[in-house]
């Protein structure tokens, strides 16, 4: 029954966009396969990779960021934003944006890793910018020091348990549970969207590792105090207490004062 209802229902407003993207992706991939340049994925930046990235950029990103990535009224310039920005924005599914809004939402990733690397290589070739670190270099931090740094620098927006929180006018700070360490690092270095930049002069590379270690610790260790109700503080805890604790008290009071029959 519900299946038929769903079929009859209106198509999702983003479906046409997704369809276009899929079409572009398929034709781009076919083109890449025919020209035989998609094999050099793991190699360091090569001229063909940059060329691939340029094509992918032109077909998927240029409508907002401009053909030369110099930006337009719809999107900022990407010159100098570096490979790390591309890895974060495209690799986390935020780009390409599905529509204009207060903030780019996380979606399923639209590209394969070699394609993301190609676009990153092209953007990085325009002007120097922060590069993507090896994932192995982002390990071995001290979670205790990371927790202290997190409380000072991150917790006011992302919540002390990394549960995220609201910002102004429909924007929000996303949760930080089970995030790829490269993306955590990238967010600190590049300051995506409204997040401030935390350069190595502010939080050193070592301290960034500590913060990543703290987030990893939070992922691996559930709250010691039992159910954390989303770690959202008084909102979820208050709701729980109002409904279940007060509801239980009212029920007990009614039972206590009711006459036995």
């Amino acid at each position, binding site marked *: 029954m519900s299946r038929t209802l769903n079929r009859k229902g209106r198509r999702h407003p983003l479906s046409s966009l997704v369809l276009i993207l899929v079409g572009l992706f398929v034709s781009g991939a076919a083109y890449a396969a025919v020209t035989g340049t998609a094999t050099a994925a793991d190699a360091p930046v090569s001229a063909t990779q940059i060329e691939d990235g340029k094509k992918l950029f032109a077909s998927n990103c240029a409508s907002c960021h401009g053909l030369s990535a110099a930006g337009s009224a719809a999107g900022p310039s990407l010159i100098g934003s570096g490979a790390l920005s591309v890895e974060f924005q495209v690799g986390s599914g935020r780009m390409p944006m599905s529509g204009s809004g207060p903030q780019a939402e996380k979606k399923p990733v639209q590209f394969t890793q070699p394609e993301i690397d190609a676009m990153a290589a092209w953007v990085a070739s325009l002007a120097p910018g922060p590069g993507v670190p090896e994932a192995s270099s982002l390990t071995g931090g001290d979670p205790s020091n990371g927790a*202290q*740094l997190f409380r*000072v*620098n991150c917790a*006011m*927006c992302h919540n002390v348990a990394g549960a995220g*929180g609201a*910002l*102004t*006018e429909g*924007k929000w*700070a996303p949760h930080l549970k089970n995030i790829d360490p490269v993306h955590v690092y990238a967010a600190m270095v590049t*300051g995506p*969207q*409204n*997040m*401030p*930049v*935390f*350069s190595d*002069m*502010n939080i050193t590379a070592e301290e960034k590792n500590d913060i990543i270690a703290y987030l990893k610790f939070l992922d691996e*260790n*559930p*709250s*010691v*105090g*039992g159910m954390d109700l989303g770690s959202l503080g008084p909102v979820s805890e208050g709701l729980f207490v109002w409904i279940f604790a007060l509801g239980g008290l009212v029920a007990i009071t009614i*039972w*206590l004062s009711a*006459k*036995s*029959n």
Partner: protein
Amino acid sequence: MADKKSDVVTSAGSAVSRPDRLQNPGFEPEHKRVHDESPERARGAERGISLLFALSGILSASAFALNFIFPIVPGDLMSTRYNNMFVGLAIAAGLLCLGVGAVHWAKALMHGHELVEERHGTRGGDATRARAVEIFQEANKESGWTRRRLLRNSLIGAFVALPIPAVALFRDLAPAGTPEEKLSHTIWEKGVRLTRDPNGVPIKASDVTIGSAFHVMPENLLEVEEGFLDEKAKAAVLLMRLPLDALNETEDRKSWSYDGIVAYSKICTHVGCPVALYEQQTHNLLCPCHQSQFDVSNQCAVIFGPAARPLPQLPITVDSEGYLVAQSDFLEPVGPSYWERER
């Protein structure tokens, strides 16, 4: 009924006393409980209650056992969670069974008569009152309270003087100096370097890239021995660098920033929460407690919410080595309004 209606006074402007006002319904007729009438049901209730008590005992004993089945292993956080959860649940359920059983016993099986006890008046009887007056008069006669006036008045004088030392003692409980003085100053002063919270590393102006936000404490904070947290709470500063074209500054404050780097008190002017939710594209600062919003590009003017005034700005500059330093303390008290404050 007709007679009563004719008693109603209906002159203009007078209150109408309604003859059909609520009558005291008295007590409901007492009804017997099912357990009073059916001995079988009473026995059933008795069995149920004793079952609850037995269950309570079993749960308490199992709470003891669970403490050993799920021991707290040092270093294993999850073991604490399981220990607390199972032991706590067993104790709570045991207490609940005990309570429910006791209440059910009282409601279903204990003596079920309804009885009414009228309140008696508080006034004593005439004889009691006369005797009380007599006692006072006797005491007066025997002690000479009204006759020996010198004795009486000197005693009253001594009692009046007794609490005077307390005035001085309680007064000394207040913090030294006026609160106003403490509220108007922080430990920022001319030449104090801006350092990173929490490690105290001084910040070079060249370290602050555009879009950065630094959480700052004064360099001299680490020397504070008494009231460290109080001083830190007052002196907390957020350092941001904006593109120069995004920064609107009045003439008198142009020298307070350095190359687009501005420093503002982190203490909300509403009720003093730390305002640090900085959005680097909109240049909005949001206070998480009551959603006050400040526009950093316009000298932290309040653009939304209950905050009374802009966040105070810390005038900064660079020293000869390129480190950011304060030009002076804040030029107005940081934080929320208080009694002596004019605005």
